[in-house]
């Protein structure tokens, strides 16, 4: 068995007897957390502030849901920034605006908000460009990175969700990714061929935005599930924000469409436009203009001029007491435009 993980220096390394450093919960702690968890079917409706205060703490490994700029949990990230946290670990496959917001907060006010490490496959914006925030933090050595592939991160959450300690995977054998992460390349005991073993990820908390939830936390996701169900099942705690809060009677008419069951969820927050300016299927398409203006300001920050981005944060995040205040900053016409665009993507009768 090849062990490449020696390359990695963790900022708080605390290897177990097998020499493994687990970030978030180790598999035994993850099991214990679920055994002890209050799994009752109770009303979990909450405010953003209450949910973030209760379930996220300094140093936590936070799994961030969605995929690039699809269904990112923007409302929760804004609240996390207002609250302030230190030394978080962010885990995700492909991150866009939610990760940029968190990274921008750290770049501007590291004493108020910081994460020390990212476990990721991709941080940028596909068609909308690179992340200047990521470049700024990485190229200045301000965060620790552990690169994986999209499948690796997704499968790590899946292993966590399955109650396994690791999961085998075929990719990306032969790449340098396997030289800087905690994966191990082993010989398959049945074929003798090389196989990648990925350590499970059991985050302390998962933050996820969905299309519909009931007060108990049963969730329906439309379009891509991304890796949200796996994250919710793997994490010790899950905060869900939803576009639509529906009755238990309605949502249980479609039990096979419920991809996150109530007992995996700790807080349900009704936040229409909670993924905005990223997109949310059946509700709104991207606000490309807003994403572009944020990128322009982030680009200036990377070049040594943080003024514009600072003003943005003062204006749009710190200056607002609630996420609704953020949404109120957009003209109704603009919000309608994104809703109408989405109606063209997903046509349905009124």
């Amino acid at each position: 068995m090849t062990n490449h993980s020696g390359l990695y220096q963790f900022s708080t390394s605390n290897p177990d007897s097998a020499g493994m450093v687990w970030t978030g919960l180790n598999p035994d702690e993850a099991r214990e957390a679920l055994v002890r968890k209050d799994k009752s079917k109770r009303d979990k409706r909450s405010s953003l502030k209450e949910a973030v205060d209760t379930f996220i703490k300094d140093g936590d490994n936070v799994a961030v849901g969605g995929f690039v700029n699809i269904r990112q949990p923007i409302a929760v990230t804004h609240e996390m920034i207002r609250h302030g946290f230190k030394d978080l670990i962010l885990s995700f496959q492909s991150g866009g605006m939610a990760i940029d917001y968190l990274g921008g907060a750290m770049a501007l006010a590291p004493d108020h908000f910081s994460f020390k490490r990212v476990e990721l496959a991709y941080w940028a914006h596909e068609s909308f460009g690179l992340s200047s925030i990521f470049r700024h933090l990485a190229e200045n050595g301000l965060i620790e990175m552990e690169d994986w592939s999209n499948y690796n991160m997704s499968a790590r959450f899946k292993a966590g969700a399955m109650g396994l300690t690791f999961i085998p995977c075929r990719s990306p054998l032969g790449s340098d990714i396997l030289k800087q992460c905690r994966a191990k390349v082993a010989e398959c005991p049945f074929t003798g061929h090389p196989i990648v073993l990925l350590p499970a990820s059991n985050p302390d908390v998962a933050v996820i935005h969905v299309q519909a939830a009931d007060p108990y936390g049963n969730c329906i996701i439309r379009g891509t599930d991304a890796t949200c169900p796996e994250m919710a099942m793997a994490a010790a705690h899950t905060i869900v924000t939803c576009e639509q809060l529906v009755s238990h009677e309605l949502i249980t008419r479609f039990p096979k469409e419920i991809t996150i069951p109530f007992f995996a969820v700790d807080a349900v927050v009704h936040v229409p436009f909670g993924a905005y300016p990223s997109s949310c299927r059946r509700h709104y398409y991207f606000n490309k203009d807003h994403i572009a203006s944020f990128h322009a300001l982030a680009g200036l920050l990377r070049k040594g001029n943080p003024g514009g981005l600072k003003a943005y944060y003062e204006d749009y995040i710190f200056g607002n007491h609630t996420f609704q205040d953020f949404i109120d900053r957009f003209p109704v016409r603009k919000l309608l435009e994104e809703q109408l665009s989405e109606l063209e993507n997903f046509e349905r009768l009124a």
Partner: protein
Amino acid sequence: MWLTEETAYTPQEMIVVAGARTLEDNKVVFVGTGLPMIATVLARRTHAPGLIPVFEAGAVGPTLETGLPFSVGDSRTSSSASYTKGLNTAFELTQRGFCDFGFVGGAEIDPFGNLNSTMMGKFPEEYQKPRVRLPGSGGASDMAASCERTILIMPHEKRRFNEKLSYITSPGFLDGAPDARKRAGLLGRGPYRVITTKAVLDFDESTRRMRLIHTMPGETVESVQAATGFELLVSPAVSEFDPPTETELRLIREQIDPLGFFVKKPVKPQPMPNQF
């Protein structure tokens, strides 16, 4: 105005056309946003109506008639899809053998079709503080590992075609040794074509090094070599690639990308591995 120009075409359009012509009917293609997606739609509307796109966020087989997606997880990939789950499911499809083709890109490519989309600088020394930090693998390394044949798309610039990469994100033929992929445990056959702004290339069967098979119109063997940072093999049958037909251009400009969001953009001055 480029919209009314009937004979001139952009390098992006040439890449789209070359990508489309490389795809085969009734096969499954694992596709990213941008140029590969336009190539896929163009192929569907010309010689390959039965071509099936798969997106890494989980959508299988959408017709893409509601418009071009901006993301591989875009709502537009879910509309009319036969099946939509999530990332795990999509990558399980590639491992299982459902994906015949995959489009992969990067910031840097070497003679064996390995790609870098992670960092510029010394690896591993500078990994935690790279000279330039790129977005990371996304699904590119998974596609390069497990799609049966990969089509690599690159802007053809000397500084991007290097004998040695800063970092191997997406495996091609690795060190080029016979059976290097098999010995590493990789499933797919590996790089099939490289489509660039200047050429179409394949890989020599005995050395697995990149080999020039077509020059794009206006380019020569010499001009392509001059824009490449390593020695290219040249096929004895090297020929000029046929320029886009009027039909192909009309489909791209009037139906597939009428706003020119992707074909009017320069071919990536910056890398975006999921995209192109």
